[in-house]
């Protein structure tokens, strides 16, 4: 009897899971269902290259590998409901799919500003390719751009928009841009580097309302300042796309709770065999650091989680070697990078958990590597340049220095 795996979410996590299932020897059916109209593509360029020039889906699409040539893709119809007892999912156009194995890969969507006069044009996000293409057309020289949120994506957009000749102001409630992962010293340094490129910052400010009748003309801050604006980019964190799981008993308190085999966990704390979570939604503990389950929104996590799920789900469906695979710990190294101007920022580990931060090499304002420590133990490194130092420290973080 042929088995069927349904993967909900047709982005990188869904693709990598399908590949990993095939690499593990799974030969039966795989159906991937996504809400976007595009085949899986790489999102990081959306805040960088796609905004800086004209880019098509073809330029950012992941190359389809031979082993996944027979995967069935359903684009443009989000899954809206799931029944874990009947083992079915249902899409918005009413189609129902039965599964033997289910992979939850439905990811995130941008959180939007909630303001009284929100119904104006000129509001943008940068999650999807279509978002980025829409924003690209608005980033004309001289355009007045306000970026809401000063995390990595907000800062990348700010840098790219400056490069396109826009006037850019970033607004965020934090003390410094990117301060939550990087800490104040490094974050203040990066703010100064942005300011040297004439990006304005309004830190420790919120957005109270938008001005404009039809088209956006300004952004009103919570201290009363009005920033004239043609374009607003909302890069202020995300919502988890888990509404389709609301009729299940899974723990959806933040993403989807998962065990070390990335099986979804119920509100009663039970792992569900054959139901897995990958990518941004997966909230799992990483024994490299501690036993606290966290979601990690780094680009390498969809790939790492997909590669973990493929063999486990195949073993479950074939009833071969399942217990042994489940017993293995899952210890992916969180990895991230960010391009801003000519700065290449690269990091490993969990710097946001640090209670102590120190410069390991280099100097503020130049190439440097920062070390992030918790109770005296290195738990993260972030650097600009100095790649070989970063690589050595990554090994130390992996515990095989």
């Amino acid at each position: 009897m042929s088995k069927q795996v349904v993967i909900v979410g047709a982005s990188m996590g869904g693709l990598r899971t399908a590949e990993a299932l095939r690499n593990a020897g799974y030969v039966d059916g795989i159906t991937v269902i996504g809400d976007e109209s595009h085949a899986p593509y790489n999102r990081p360029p959306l805040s960088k290259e796609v905004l800086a020039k004209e880019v098509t889906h073809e330029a950012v699409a992941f190359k389809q590998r031979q082993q996944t040539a027979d995967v069935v893709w359903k684009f443009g119809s989000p899954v809206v409901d799931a029944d874990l007892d009947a083992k079915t999912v249902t899409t918005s156009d009413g189609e129902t799919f039965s599964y033997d194995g289910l992979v939850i890969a439905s990811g995130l969507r941008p959180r939007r500003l909630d303001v009284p006069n929100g119904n104006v044009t000129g509001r943008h996000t940068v999650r999807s390719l279509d978002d980025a293409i829409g924003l690209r057309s608005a980033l004309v020289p001289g355009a007045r751009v306000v970026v809401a949120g000063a995390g990595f994506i907000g800062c990348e957009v700010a840098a790219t928009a400056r490069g396109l000749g826009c006037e850019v102001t970033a607004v965020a409630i934090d003390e410094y841009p990117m301060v939550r992962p990087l800490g104040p010293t490094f974050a203040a340094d990066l703010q100064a580097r942005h300011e040297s490129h004439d990006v304005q910052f309004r830190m420790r400010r919120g957005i109270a309302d938008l001005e404009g009748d039809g088209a956006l003309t300004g952004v009103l801050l919570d201290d009363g300042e009005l920033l004239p604006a043609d374009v607003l980019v909302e890069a202020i964190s995300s919502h988890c796309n888990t509404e389709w799981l609301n009729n299940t008993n899974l723990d959806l308190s933040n993403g989807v709770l998962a065990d070390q085999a990335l099986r979804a966990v119920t509100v009663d704390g039970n792992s569900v065999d054959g139901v897995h979570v990958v990518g941004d939604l997966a909230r799992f503990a990483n024994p490299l650091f501690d036993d606290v389950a966290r979601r990690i929104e780094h680009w390498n996590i969809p790939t790492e989680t997909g590669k973990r799920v493929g063999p486990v789900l195949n073993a479950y469906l074939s009833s071969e070697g399942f217990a042994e695979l489940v017993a293995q710990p899952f210890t992916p190294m969180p990895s991230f990078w960010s391009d801003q101007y000519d700065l290449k920022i690269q990091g490993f580990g969990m710097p946001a958990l640090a209670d102590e931060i120190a410069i390991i090499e280099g100097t503020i304002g130049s190439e440097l590597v920062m070390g992030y420590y918790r109770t005296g133990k290195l738990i993260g490194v972030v650097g600009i340049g100095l790649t070989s130092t970063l690589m050595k420290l990554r090994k130390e973080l992996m515990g095989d220095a």
Partner: protein
Amino acid sequence: MLKIHVDMDKCQHYGQCVFEAPDIFKLNDDDKLEYVATADDSRRADIESAVDVCPMQAITIQD
């Protein structure tokens, strides 16, 4: 044999590929990427992993 190609216009020398297939990819003394352009088919899994982890998606395998 597998043919490996790195688009050096895209490559930013992050070095993530080095962790996946250190026999194929390395950073030289100037932290610039160097790689071996051909590999035995038995190396496919690790090289595909290197393709997967490249932040710039600059690596391709030609079968």
